[in-house]
């Protein structure tokens, strides 16, 4: 702690940050543009000027840029000095000379950092009478709109895109007031984090194109804090609604999980909630027509009542995309024995193995954001950019961890980005990427290893054996493999904080075992490594914690025992199992009941469809890949027929007098029931405040105090306004009624603070800039760690891969846009989704044309042939999850013919 004096007042502060960050942490308003808490200072915008005095006697002082100034003991500064205020006003006036007159049609208007700072600095009337410079815009793909005229040349975009996110196709061109930020030529931005440009850009140069399609001002959005459903990381997001449709997703700060940013799949892959395929009314298959017909809610309950009367046996299939509460509700209804996790045998086995490693291996489990602090990273098999994109962004920061020791040694503060950058250039720390084919992290890798999953697992085992000779030995390694194992082992032993990243995406258990063995070996050598494993889907961990059984078991049981009805919860079985198997399973039931929000091949087979809400219309809890339970909150009330799955099931159970001893009315009741049945999940209750939480006796409003159109938006239907819906499940209200002061972090649904309409208002909600949120909770870990370190070496080492004649080993490949089931309903995502293809090593493609016939699991599909030099010979890359690819059961050997 040091003492500094700001405008005559003394403050005690930690001297770790630059002065600007310290001032903002003290909640003092200082205008700024180019500084960003995640990207450090470059001192280019000159907006954060303050006056610095030499000592008490110094009355003149000198103007310095606070973002470039370290905090030192006894420092005397002034933010309010008239001269420095005039300095800032002059600068903003100069900044604005070329800014176009288009705020009314700018998507940033009303949440614009530039507007905030212009007002704060005190410029309001244009005196400059000369012409404005103009620029041509570029086409930047389906997600980002470019409007270069608005640029104020703060350089934040290029610093984020190139330096922070590692993009290469975007840069700054020309000089002085002609500078241009864009691509070399028109085209789709290649980086997976390009959507963050929208939030990083202080003005409207980069805006959200998907949002533009149904644009709504920030103050008109009904917003709620929620959790991204598009991968297992569980990034925090804010979803905004207007007129009954979700308008956009923005990142929500969580100091443990995603920090300031989210990936493009998370930001743009939400359009399925607005899709025409949405199921909004209950549907029943008419006995006469054989078609699905719209029915009312009563019919749904009658349907179940009839089944209950007949004492029907239900088989329930859960979902890794549905909340813990929904899965548990189904489990309560059908009974534990008749409930099956809705994932196939491979996924479930791998998820359970991953959870076992997280719980029992001696490695510690960092949070997503903590992985940025690892100094040596080994990625085993996982193409993180495509399976868990935000992890790639974190790992990119981790690759700079080791080099950052140099500036520290030279007493250059790490926030001084310009100096650090000059010093480090392209220096990267030890970073190993072991995957079947190239990844987007290869550019920062110290070494890469391109092999099929079992060989990667063998190399991992070899690393473990190198670190600790007690670990099982791997035979038949090549010399280069031995050398690589030694290199990785040495770096890991040399590390301050080693990190092992792996996951389930390659569908190979031995990889996870290899990762665990490295962790055990390191522990034996008195190092506590971090282990970070990605899982298949948003709530895979939660589902596996509820039920260890899988779909294949359900299949066996349904065929061997007599069941009357099948209840499928928010799941498309055709993505989980081979088509013929699902058909067989569904044929075994007289009644097929599907609770879902989107029409899909499974709902097409249903006898009864119960419409439930997707994540934006429901409340629930998800458990992410590190075992963190996080609550997501309903954004808006979709009408009476669309309910949470658990609410439907609760009401259905009441009809059948099931679970009589429990009250199951609202979310809190279901959470209580969940932790009664699963005491190890008791942390779920603490993941977020319950429905009784109030501030000053008031609920937290989902709408801003300036929400408009209240008396008009429904007026075309009926001029008398309807009664606003009530929310019995959360501490939030659906209207603007409630506590309009700063929102507590735990239910923070919008960044707004007096004077700060832009996302920069976030500074006000953080205890200190870059730290935790006021009254906030980053979720709660639910993993039971009592058996920690109880794990011993996995001794089974896979055989080395041997290429076969005419037979190729299928290797799953992932695409950020395409592999995920629902995000593909966004137009832009579908546009960027590749056509189904097969990837082969050039050497294996002799005699094959552009289109090849591929035989996978007893079916033949025609696929485009792509060639590469890095995929090992004898292996065939198969993109997973793309539409038309169908479910593939790995490991698989495929046959290819011209």
């Amino acid at each position: 702690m040091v003492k500094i004096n700001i405008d005559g007042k003394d403050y005690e502060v930690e001297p770790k940050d630059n002065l600007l960050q310290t001032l903002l942490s003290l909640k003092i308003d200082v205008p700024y543009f180019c500084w960003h808490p995640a990207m450090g200072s470059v001192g280019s915008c000159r907006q954060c000027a303050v006056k610095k005095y030499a000592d008490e006697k110094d009355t003149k002082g000198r103007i310095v840029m606070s973002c470039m100034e370290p905090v030192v003991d006894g420092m005397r500064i002034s933010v309010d000095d008239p001269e420095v205020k005039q300095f800032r006003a002059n600068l903003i006036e100069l900044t604005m000379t070329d800014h176009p007159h288009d705020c009314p049609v700018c998507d940033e208007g009303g949440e614009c950092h530039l507007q905030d700072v212009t007002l704060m600095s005190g410029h309001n009337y244009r005196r400059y009478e000369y012409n404005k410079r103009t620029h041509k815009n570029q086409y930047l793909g389906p997600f980002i709109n470019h409007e270069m005229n608005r640029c104020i040349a703060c350089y934040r975009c290029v610093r984020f895109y190139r330096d922070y996110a590692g993009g290469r196709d975007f840069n700054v061109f020309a000089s002085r007031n002609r500078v241009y930020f864009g691509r070399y030529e028109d085209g789709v931005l290649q980086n997976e984090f390009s959507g963050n440009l929208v939030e990083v850009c202080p003005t409207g140069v980069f805006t959200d194109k998907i949002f533009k399609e149904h644009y709504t001002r920030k103050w008109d959005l009904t917003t709620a804090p929620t959790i991204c459903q598009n991968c297992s990381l569980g990034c925090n997001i804010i979803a905004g609604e207007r007129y009954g449709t979700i308008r956009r997703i923005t990142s929500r700060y969580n100091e443990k999980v995603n920090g300031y940013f989210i990936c493009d799949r998370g930001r743009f892959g939400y359009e399925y909630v607005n899709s025409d395929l949405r199921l909004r009314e209950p549907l029943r298959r008419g006995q006469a027509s054989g078609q699905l017909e719209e029915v009312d809610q009563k019919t749904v309950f009658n349907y179940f009542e009839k089944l209950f009367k007949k004492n029907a046996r239900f088989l329930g299939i859960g979902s890794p995309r549905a909340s813990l509460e929904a899965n548990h509700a189904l489990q309560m209804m059908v009974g534990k024995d008749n409930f099956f996790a809705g994932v196939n045998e491979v996924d479930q086995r791998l998820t359970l193995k991953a959870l076992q490693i997280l719980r029992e291996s001696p490695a510690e489990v960092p949070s997503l954001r903590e992985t940025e602090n690892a100094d040596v990273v080994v990625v085993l098999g996982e193409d993180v950019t495509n399976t868990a994109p935000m992890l790639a962004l974190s790992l990119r920061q981790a690759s700079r961890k080791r080099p950052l020791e140099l500036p520290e040694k030279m007493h250059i503060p790490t926030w001084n980005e310009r100096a650090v950058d000059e010093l480090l250039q392209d220096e990267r720390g030890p970073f190993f990427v072991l995957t079947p084919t190239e990844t987007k992290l290869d550019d920062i890798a110290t070494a890469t290893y391109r092999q099929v999953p079992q060989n990667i697992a063998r190399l991992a085992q070899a690393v473990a054996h190198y670190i600790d000779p007690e670990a099982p030995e791997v035979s038949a390694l090549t010399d280069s493999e031995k050398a690589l194992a030694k290199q990785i082992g040495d770096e890991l032993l040399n590390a301050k904080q080693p990190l092992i990243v792996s996951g389930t995406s390659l569908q190979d258990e031995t990889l996870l075992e290899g990762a665990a063995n490295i962790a055990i070996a390191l522990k034996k050598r008195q190092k506590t490594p971090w282990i970070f494993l990605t899982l298949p889907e948003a709530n895979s961990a939660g589902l596996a914690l509820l039920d260890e059984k899988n779909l294949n078991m359900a299949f066996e049981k349904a065929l061997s025992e007599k069941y009357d009805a099948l209840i499928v919860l928010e799941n498309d079985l055709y993505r989980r199992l081979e088509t013929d198997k699902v058909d067989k399973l569904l044929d075994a039931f007289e009644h097929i009941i599907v609770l879902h929000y989107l029409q899909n091949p499974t709902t097409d087979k249903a006898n009864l469809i119960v419409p439930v809400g997707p994540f934006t219309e429901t409340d629930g809890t998800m458990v992410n890949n590190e075992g963190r339970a996080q609550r997501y909150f309903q954004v808006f009330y979709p009408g009476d027929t669309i309910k949470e799955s658990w609410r439907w099931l609760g009401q259905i159970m009441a009809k059948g007098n099931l679970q009589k001893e429990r009250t199951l009315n609202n979310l809190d009741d279901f959470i209580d029931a969940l932790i009664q049945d699963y005491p190890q999940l008791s942390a779920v209750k603490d993941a977020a405040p319950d429905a009784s939480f109030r501030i000053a006796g008031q609920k937290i409003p989902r709408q801003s105090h300036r929400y408009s159109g209240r008396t008009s938006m429904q007026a075309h239907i009926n001029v008398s306004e309807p009664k606003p819906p009530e929310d019995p499940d959360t501490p939030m209200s659906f209207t603007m009624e409630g506590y309009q002061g700063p929102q507590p972090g735990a239910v923070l649904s919008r960044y707004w603070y007096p004077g700060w309409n832009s996302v920069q208002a976030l500074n006000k909600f953080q205890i200190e800039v870059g730290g935790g949120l006021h009254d906030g909770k980053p979720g709660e870990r639910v993993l039971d760690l009592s058996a920690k370190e109880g794990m011993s070496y996995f001794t089974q080492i896979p055989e080395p891969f041997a290429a076969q004649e005419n037979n190729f080993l299928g290797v799953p490949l992932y695409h950020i846009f395409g592999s995920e089931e629902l995000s593909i309903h966004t137009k832009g995502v579908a546009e960027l989704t590749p056509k189904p293809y097969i990837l082969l090593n050039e050497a294996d493609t002799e005699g094959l044309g552009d289109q090849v016939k591929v035989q996978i699991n007893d079916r033949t599909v025609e696929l485009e042939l792509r060639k590469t030099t890095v995929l090992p010979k004898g292996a065939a890359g198969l993109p997973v999850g793309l539409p038309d690819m169908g479910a593939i059961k790995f490991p698989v050997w495929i046959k290819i013919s011209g």
Partner: protein
Amino acid sequence: MFSILRSIWLTLLHTFSKRFTIQYPEEKPKLPARWRGRIVLTRDPDGTERCVACNLCAAACPADCISLQATQDEHGRRYPAFFRINFSRCIFCGFCEDACPTYAIQLTPDFELAEYDRQNLVFEKEDLLIDGPGKYHDYNFYRVSGLAIEGKDKGEAEHEDPPIDIHDLRA
């Protein structure tokens, strides 16, 4: 004391002065052009919709009786997909007109808005849009703003230089 008597006397003298009341339905009042009556949406001098769907009128409206949705044509010109005013809630304060950056929304000297059915007081864009520029004849937002629309590319607005060619090394 005297002033009290004087006020009484002066008040009494008003017995003989002219009455200001206009006997409304028989006699129509002459209203100034800036009278705050029925709200209209005006057009640019070139006949296109002035409203750019910026939402500022809706935000300014104390009765929250304006709602609209922005959309854009294929050239990027923004306009309201729908624009609704619930006149049964409107208090004719004129804040919307003050807030409007394009002179699109204007209040007119028409106050005769009575309806037997409240539902008829909900006006949609078709009901609000008039054919002229209203009180402000010459203003054309898109000729001033930097956004390119059909027929006006970058650098063609007022006070704009032609677009910069970043490949031009001489500059």
